[in-house]
């Protein structure tokens, strides 16, 4: 049986994991476009 305290901690961990995943995905997309832009500039 999961205690209410543990559930609060799990929920916060889930929220943080979700935000981290979103930020990482955004970073990957950003890196992709930076690479395209740099390639276009012939750097």
């Amino acid at each position, binding site marked *: 049986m999961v*205690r209410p*305290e*543990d559930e*609060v*901690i799990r929920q*916060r*961990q889930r*929220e*943080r994991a979700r*935000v981290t995943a979103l930020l990482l995905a955004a970073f990957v997309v*950003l890196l992709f*476009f*930076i690479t*395209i*832009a*740099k390639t*276009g*500039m012939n750097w």
Partner: protein
Amino acid sequence: MPTLELSNPAALPADWRDFVALTKPRVMSLVVFTGLCGLLVAPVRLPPVLGFTAILCIALGAGACGALNQWYEVEVDGKMRRTAKRPLPAGRMDRQSALHFGVGLGGFSVLLMGLAANWFAAALLAVSILFYVIVYTVWLKPRTAQNIVIGGAAGAFPPLIGWIAATGHVAALPLLLFAIIFLWTPPHFWALSLFVRSDYAAAGIPMLPVVAGLQSTRWQILLYSPPMAAAAVAPWLLGLSGPVYGACATLLSLVFLVLALRVAANRASEPSSMDAEKHLFAYSVFYLFALFTVLVADRFLPW
């Protein structure tokens, strides 16, 4: 098996919103805006994604400064009404998380700036972060009433970094933008510190009104305002911007000087009677936004 006390919020993993609060988003908005203006007035056009990344790096660098500032000043923040509800003094986050977040964010912003824009801009971003954290927060702020005079340089870096991210070199105009913010910072902060003086005194921070008194601070505000106004109109006088900017900068600066004169004439010692100081503080934020907006508009619009 030990149980967690939910009455102690620090026992929980910090909420992600508290990490956002740690970056001082309101301060960041001014930093992002001035950095963007520095980038936009530069004569070189970066591809939009690289320009966006450069501004993002400036924002993340500013966020790192905010986080490291709050990590270092947790005890001071706990003594001031204005800052007591921040994540660290309120006990919603442990200090080590704030330190790791700040260092990580700062390092990431510098690396990304180097990869996306150029390493000169990245180096300057690193210098500005270190200057804010070490020179201002750790060294000057708890020791001297001139803390924000020298420390103000940290907030003046963004337009310079924005320009260098675009061009790769320094020029007269971004140096003038640096000078404007550098000279604007003392009157802006001293106006604020006049009406929150008791907070700074309680926290033991030697802000000018605490150390030198109210009237001396009011005179210092008045003394700094003309050089700031001169720096504001200098881009026009030196032919680096057009007459529309010149006219707007002159008008905006004249209003600033009038408000600074009202502050100098005020003799009130109670914050409730410091309308002149509150008006100057509010106007100073508008002044910087308006000045930089007109500078960018002057560069792009066919007046």
